[in-house]
């Protein structure tokens, strides 16, 4: 299962010139500021936008090849699309909306699939309602279910959370995570929010003014400190394994490639994998191993790079085994501790965010 996308289009005010390739089913974030051309890319994948030149291959099926004159229309692309504004059909009930694509799927999937998706999204109590009476979060879930039930080959999500407030966002995110874990669909997720990307994505394609400027795994790209990636680094994004529970202390131990982390007890069995996020602001650095310190997590690491930032800040990139961390400290501290590539340090991690699954 691979997805290959290359597009060129002249919009007049800016030119789109994007190329990337996804080798296995995963969540690829199309990241960039508004106006970067993210939506144009997903529209082109969906067949809603026909670029001047380009080639799109989904799982070996050429759906666009301008040189060969191939353009598979949107209705035959089998790309499930969750729009930012949900675009539920206002004259139909939630159930008819859900079944719209399901009824038109080239290979019928049966009632079980309808029940499974309704159950997964927790929308069984909404089936009789009209879209106008749904909350933003409910609309988003129904739109997601409608796209999934059309049995797509690929799922496109155009900022499905952007129009929602923080509470509604928190309501949908777990469903998106579950979707990522339970389906083997390649997903393209348009976003301009780093925290969403760090939470959901496996890979990131960074777009800026119509160009793809950087591409890589979420673990790699979000801890790069070079200029020009178009994305602010975070402290760390890790896939960790639950190594042990310390029920007496109410803690769990997570192992990752480079050490282990102690976090509040997670409600999952030992051996399960979790995504862990750390903010760069939540990592302190020490030249000597701190003793008698309240922080549970102190990781030995080595400085691998330094970038000076605005406002007297500095990003210090660390190698902790095979894992990369970024600590955001002041330039004053940087000088005081004489931090430079190769210097051994201890990373004191003040706070860890554990997402329910990865």
């Amino acid at each position: 299962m691979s997805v290959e996308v290359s597009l060129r289009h002249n919009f007049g005010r800016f030119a789109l010139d994007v190329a990337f390739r996804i080798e296995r089913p995963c969540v690829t974030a199309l990241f960039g500021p508004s106006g970067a051309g993210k939506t144009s890319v997903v529209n082109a994948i969906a067949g809603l936008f026909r670029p001047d030149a380009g080639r799109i291959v989904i799982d070996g099926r050429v759906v666009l090849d301008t040189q060969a004159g191939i353009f598979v229309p949107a209705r035959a692309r089998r790309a499930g699309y969750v729009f930012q504004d949900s675009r539920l059909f206002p004259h139909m009930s939630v159930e008819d909306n859900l079944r719209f694509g399901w009824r038109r799927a080239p290979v019928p999937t049966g009632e079980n699939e309808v029940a499974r998706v309704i159950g997964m999204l927790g929308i069984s109590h909404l089936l009789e309602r009209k879209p106008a009476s749904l909350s933003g979060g409910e609309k988003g879930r129904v739109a997601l279910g409608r796209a999934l039930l059309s049995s797509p080959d690929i799922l496109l999500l155009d900022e499905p959370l952007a129009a929602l407030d923080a509470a509604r966002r928190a309501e949908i995110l777990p469903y998106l995570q579950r979707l990522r874990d339970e389906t083997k669909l390649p997903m393209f997720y348009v976003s301009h929010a780093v925290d969403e990307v760090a939470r959901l994505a496996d890979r990131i394609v960074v777009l800026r003014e119509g160009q793809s400027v950087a591409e890589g795994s979420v673990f790699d790209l979000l801890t790069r400190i070079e200029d020009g990636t178009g994305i602010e680094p975070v402290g760390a994004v890790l896939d960790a394994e639950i190594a042990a529970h310390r029920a007496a202390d109410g803690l769990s131990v997570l192992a990752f490639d480079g050490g282990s982390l102690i976090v509040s007890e997670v409600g999952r069995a030992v051996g399960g994998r979790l995504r862990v996020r750390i903010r760069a602001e939540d990592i302190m650095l020490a030249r000597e191993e701190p003793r008698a310190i309240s922080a549970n997590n102190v990781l030995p690491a080595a400085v691998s790079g330094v970038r000076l930032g605005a406002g007297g800040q500095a990003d210090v990139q660390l190698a902790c085994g095979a894992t990369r961390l970024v600590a955001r400290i002041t330039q004053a501290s940087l000088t005081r501790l004489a931090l430079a590539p190769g210097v051994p340090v201890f990373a004191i991690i003040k706070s860890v965010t554990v997402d329910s699954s990865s």
Partner: protein
Amino acid sequence: MTDLLTPAESQALLLSLRVSAVAVFAALPFAVAAALLLARSRFPGKVLVDGLIHVPLVLPPVAIGFLLLEALGTRAGLGAWLYQSFGIRFVFSWTGAALASGLITFPFQVRAIRLALEAVDPGLGAAAQTLGAGWFDRLVNLTLPLAFPGIVAGVITAFAASLGEFGAIITFVSNIPGETRTLPLAIYTALQTPGGEVQAARLSLMSIALALIFMTLAEFAQRRARR
């Protein structure tokens, strides 16, 4: 009704309703097609087509009646062919009155339906495409149901306007009691008769009542369309 209206009055009323109903519903499919063409597609000469559809709004109805007579009279080319080949005759027949009314009220229908179609969010059509719906599928299951209140408003407005048609009918199909003498023609006939003013006033009141009823209905439909 029989107590309230004279036989001649109820004859004119029923004929008016029948002529208008047939006129509007026979024109409806063409009006939907024309509205779709104007609302959803771009083609060279669109301005011309738009203008042509709206010509009946500004042309004197008598002129339309005259043109119809020229084209569809039993001695005219098209009319003679229709009559000899199929026995279809429009002149001196209520169907001719319906044809004239349908033609004149066509722009009302097209305009209302076009506005309703343009109000349908094209994003919904894009969503339906990604869900596997083709052009006709989207038209039947999405566009027309969403535009339905606007279509109803167009039908009612055209119907009400059709009830008042005079010039084209009297020119094209003449003024035959029970066949082509609709309410406006009956009013005209009463006025031509000495002492017919009371009759004309009664018929005029009937017309006013009908117009009020249907314009109110159209307003309701418009409000629903806007919601």
